[in-house]
């Protein structure tokens, strides 16, 4: 395998402390789904009223679950059609692996495989934990992800290689109970290298291939209007499209601006052992640094883009 210089998450400023060589770098990216309420709706609202994200007729209630590899059945059009055409990289998958200072036979099998955030029986499904500025900040759109249990697998129904590790908070308890100092390292923060959100992130725009946010949503509006004008819709279906059109029109700048959004997570997964199958030589006890960004949020599709790198220290 090649051994390029270690990189952070997609060129973002701020990289985690890399493990001492030898290590394996696993790059990943793709579109993910998160169906959640947005301020000023209460964060436990089932379907939304006043925020720009709304669960419409025919869709299930919000679950706020960050699904890195959502089934197409959970997506709205045009994401389904775009995914089938190969025009939208739905699902966060491994894009490359790099070895630094060592070799790890079999690691290349991970390329193309899914990266997942797993649920926890006690802590629930992985979410951006918010509570409208009680945890994280709605004003600056910076939230911790909890639980954080990452799994990377080789592609296919019976992957030959997989790895998993949970990051455990330094203190026990639900997020609402814990002081922010306990979980602040898990908060996605504004990129330090730019103008915050005053200027959309070029890296994000490149990743999602969207540069004209107005035209993007004008296109979406035209698309939805064409569906509304078509045949075969029942009353509920027509009203659902009207609600999507209403949200885009009403929230205008707010919904458009989220396309250029970028938040960075940089921390070391630790305090619980990792597990690896199909690969020998991974250090399961030393922290696994991870650096990624999430952004490019399409509030109509309720999908965002993720890109980053996971670093696995290798045993000497």
């Amino acid at each position, binding site marked *: 395998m090649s051994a390029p210089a270690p990189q952070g998450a997609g060129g973002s400023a701020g990289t985690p402390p890399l493990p001492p060589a030898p290590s394996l770098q696993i790059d990943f990216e793709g579109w993910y789904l998160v169906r959640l309420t947005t301020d000023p709706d*209460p964060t436990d609202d089932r379907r939304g009223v006043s925020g720009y994200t709304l669960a419409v*007729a025919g869709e299930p209630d919000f679950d706020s679950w960050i699904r890195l590899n959502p089934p197409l059945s959970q997506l709205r059009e045009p994401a389904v059609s775009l995914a089938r055409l190969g025009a939208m990289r739905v699902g966060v998958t491994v894009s490359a692996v790099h070895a630094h200072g060592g070799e790890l036979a079999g690691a290349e099998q991970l390329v193309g495989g899914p990266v997942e955030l797993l649920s926890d029986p006690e*802590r629930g499904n992985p979410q951006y934990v918010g509570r*409208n*500025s009680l945890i994280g900040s709605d004003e600056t759109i910076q939230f911790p992800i909890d639980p954080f249990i990452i799994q990377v697998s080789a592609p296919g129904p019976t992957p030959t290689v997989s790895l998993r590790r949970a990051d455990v908070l330094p203190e026990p308890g639900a*997020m609402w109970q814990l002081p*922010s100092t306990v979980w602040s390292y898990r908060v996605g923060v504004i990129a330090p290298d730019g103008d915050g959100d005053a200027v959309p992130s070029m890296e994000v725009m490149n990743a999602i291939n969207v540069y004209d946010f107005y035209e993007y949503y004008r296109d979406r509006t035209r698309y939805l209007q064409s569906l509304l004008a078509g045949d075969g819709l029942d009353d509920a279906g027509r009203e659902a499209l009207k609600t999507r059109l209403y949200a885009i029109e009403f929230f205008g700048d707010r919904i458009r601006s989220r396309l250029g959004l970028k938040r960075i997570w940089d921390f070391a997964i630790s305090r619980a052992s990792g597990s690896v199958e199909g690969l020998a030589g991974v250090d399961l006890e030393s922290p696994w640094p991870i650096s990624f960004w999430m952004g490019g949020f399409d509030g109509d599709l309720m999908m965002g883009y993720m890109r980053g790198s996971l670093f696995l220290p290798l045993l000497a």
Partner: protein
Amino acid sequence: MADGTDFTGVISSKDQLVAALFDLAEIEQTVMCQYLTAAFTIRRAGEPGVDAAQAERARRWAAGVSKVARQEMEHLALVNNLLLAIGAAPHFWRPPFPVAYGYFPVDLEFHLMSFGPDSLARFIRFEAPDPTVAIGPETGGLAAAAGGPSSGGSPLAEVSPGPARSHAAELGVALGSVQDLLTAVRDAVNNVHGFPALDDLFTGDPNKEPVQNFPLGFAMNIFEFTISGPVTATAAIDLMLEQGEGVRAQPDFSSHYVTFSDILAELLAAPFGAAWPMVQDPAPGRVSAPYALALMDAMSYAYVTTLYMLVSWYTFFHPESASGPPSGFSAALQEMSIGPMMTMQVRPLGELLTRAPSGLAGWFAGPQWAIAAADEPLVPSDDPAFFVDRLVELVRREVVVHSLAGSSQPADQPRLEYIIQSAARTAMDFAAISGSSIDRQAVMALVPSSAGASR
């Protein structure tokens, strides 16, 4: 006359201006409470009485009514910025429901009602650019309903509204409509009549106004800004007139008047029972179910706690650093009063209330928006412990509600647990940001827990 006793609807002194602004603040908050109440009653998807298509329409109506309510909060903020700008104290009190103001040719009664044609007709009348306009046949002949008793209320007897005290009228300013009130204020801040008493009005420090320029305009369609003189004061008044009545707005501007008119037209075009039937003007006596009464009490307590936060924020505001985490008493009030209190306490409690049986078969409870007698003065506090204590007390009251829900509305318990957790978190965060003390373990021990409430 230029001695403050002018009876022609002209404001000629600073005291009269302050009084008129007090009236305006009270009206803005009163209508906001009415709009929010109606929005809380609107049925949601999956609830009985609405199919999927109807639920979508109803949800868009709820969004529209809620947007108007948010803009009334914006108006309340602007009025209070204007009060500070002229060196007066902020004003967050309002009279109890039901109440009648004498600002219209037709005495307009303010009632807490379910969403529906009757309440919408009232809202249209409140926001109409010409208060004499009749609400025509397209509303099913509801013109009378807009001014008189509701035809959609419960079998309970109508509550006669108490007369609203007009601070301005007490100082001799006679006004016809809310638009007259705003016009008189605009004339006063520009001193168009040349009263010496209105020279040098803007003696306040604009930096002491807590709502600075357009913090939420981009995200929430709420446009608040600092008021520092006649130009900005006039802009605030004109914004209120434009957003409310659509005065001097461009064609198709979605003023409150147009928003409500459109909603009513849509509802009448395809009518259905879009709202939970709420007992009109909920209050103990009209509501008898213990669970609902406890929930009403908790919601009113949360609401009044929010009012204390707002009046104290306005009174003791200190600009915080633009960078870094919020710290200090002023920052605690700012951080906790809006998102945490309004969206994570008042609203969800209100939504639970409008689905809680009232004790009268077939009718449901609702928010009372009561300000207890001891709280009437709404004296601002600069003591963080005052707020921490109130927030912990809120947790205790909500825990009582949760306990009562066990026997009457067990399905509400998970949501109540989430609300209680948020209240506890608000108390702890308030203490942390303001640098005051709290026994975190004791507060957390109050919070009931069950499987699934793990975040």
